[in-house]
């Protein structure tokens, strides 16, 4: 038996951060489902570990134009989605983020140093989520914003992914999530403040912001 030779590499790698209960793993699945719906190959997986409400959670998405055969971890994302801004104080959330990478943040932009080349997209996703879902769930709002800013997946595909993946939770939940998704999509264009020039905060970066290995850059 012979394994097929691979022609192309991943197009987009995304890392999602949140706390247990915020639907971070579901958001990764929805994003991968939407990419698949748009005709790409995709893969979603959580950071493996014990799951508990409130604890930091990570999930990952690979989007590619050809079969994804990698099953190792993802270290150098093109975008990072942050569902809980308080994680910025304790976790190295920007580690490995590629130069010029996108950060989609639920909350106000923190003070960061100039020169990292990162693009910030900040919106009050919990508030928007609460308005539609009755609970401060930011996940579908942030997915809408990510889709609008990057066009890596279409809004239609995301809506279809929400409809299919959340179908077992009932029509009301699907409808509310699609509304949240749409508001996130529409909010994205107006909430990209420029970076603020202040000294870097050690706890915030933990020296990992530029941490991109030569090997991974070569990919």
């Amino acid at each position, binding site marked *: 038996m012979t394994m097929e030779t691979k022609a192309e590499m991943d197009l987009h790698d995304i890392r999602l951060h949140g706390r247990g209960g915020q639907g971070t793993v579901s958001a990764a699945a929805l994003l991968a*489902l939407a990419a698949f719906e748009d005709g790409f190959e*995709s893969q979603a997986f959580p950071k493996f570990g014990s799951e508990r409400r409130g604890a930091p959670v990570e999930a990952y998405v690979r989007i590619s134009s050809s079969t994804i055969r990698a099953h190792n*971890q993802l270290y150098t994302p093109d975008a990072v989605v942050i569902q809980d801004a308080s994680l910025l104080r304790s976790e190295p959330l920007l580690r490995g983020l590629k130069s010029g990478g996108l950060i989609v943040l639920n909350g106000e932009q923190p003070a960061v140093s100039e020169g990292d080349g990162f693009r910030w997209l900040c919106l009050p996703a919990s508030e928007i989520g609460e308005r539609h879902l009755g609970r401060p769930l930011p996940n579908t709002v942030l997915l809408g914003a990510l889709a609008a800013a990057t066009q890596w997946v279409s809004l239609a595909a995301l809506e279809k992914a929400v409809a299919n993946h959340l179908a077992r939770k009932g029509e009301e939940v699907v409808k509310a999530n699609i509304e949240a998704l749409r508001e996130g999509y529409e909010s994205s264009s107006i909430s990209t403040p420029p970076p603020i020039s202040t000294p870097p905060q050690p706890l915030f970066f933990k020296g*990992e912001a530029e941490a991109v290995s030569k090997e991974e850059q*070569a990919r």
Partner: protein
Amino acid sequence: MKQLLEGSQAVAEAVRLCRPQVVAAYPITPQTHIIERLAQHVANGELDAEFINAESEFGAASIVLGAVAAGARAFTATASQGLLLMTEVLYNIAGLRLPVVMVCANRAIGAPINIFSDHQDSMAVRDAGWIQLYVGSNQEAVDTMVQAYRIAEACELPVMVCMDGFLLTHTFEPVVLPSQAEVDGYLPAFQFARTLDPARPMTLGGASEADNYQPYRVAQHDAMENVQAVIEAFDADYETQFGRTGGGLVQGYRLDGAITVVLCMGTLMGAVADAVDRQRDQGEAVGALRLRCFRPFPVQALLDHLKGVQRIIVLEKAISIGAGGIVAAELRAALQQAEMTIPVESVIGGLGGRDLTPAVIEAIFQQATDEKIDTLNRFAPDHRVNGEVQHG
């Protein structure tokens, strides 16, 4: 139709399509989603099976033993400590020649407590008499599941479908699920010749003394040897019907003109293939080989793929403590038996979920090329980002 499914869900759907009549299990991460899904199917009437919540893995294995002896197709799944707790029953299932099929969602063994993926669990029961097939993707998990029942029932040997815990079970990826009609066309209904039946009384599992115990083991060993041809034939059959192969006995990658080859099992092949591509781009004559079937150990298929190779690196996610690499030792023995003198380097890595990335595998290739592999101390180097070790 191709759809994006979590590995556990994909394999549970494949099990449902095989129409098991008894499903018994005890929950353990990372296989729990498989059984949860099957329980839902039974509860919703989508699978006509008896679902039995066992009191332990020992119980779950004993239930499927009994179910198959009574002529029912049966399924169970477990991992890690759960598999070890089943060990006694696993030997009995194999010794009784009962065609049980199970999934092992490969995970590390304690102590220390660790839930992440490696191959130490299934490798620990390698001598129990089960066929062991290690899958490289969720698609292969689906295809191998369907093949597993046909192999098991045709040869009266149990099959363990080994899929990397988390790396497959918790990962969403595109999978084509066959239709019920397609699976029914490939997999005949289970007709067990030795079914326990009050109308035809017989003893199953009687005592055996020195005069005929050993002949039983010889017969088991012979059956395992012979099953290699069956695995290949049923896989070829599957390819004809479904247009996909499950991977045969071994699967090669860029072996043409390869001087140095990495041999591995399971999902590791993805990262190894990426590393091979990068090394080939730099003009290095490297290739990869994946052992899909570890038991029986497919000596001839391996040797056929290694002709002209000058150096083999066996990269494995299990260790025989005090001895080293398990696959490496078996491969060395096979090569010596065949009078093929190819040096075999044993490298162990990925234990307890430690990530084996293309960069790590490239470093191993590099050391092999530089003939410095001894400096590896027989364990894979760590993946580093900006000098900092990443543990996965």
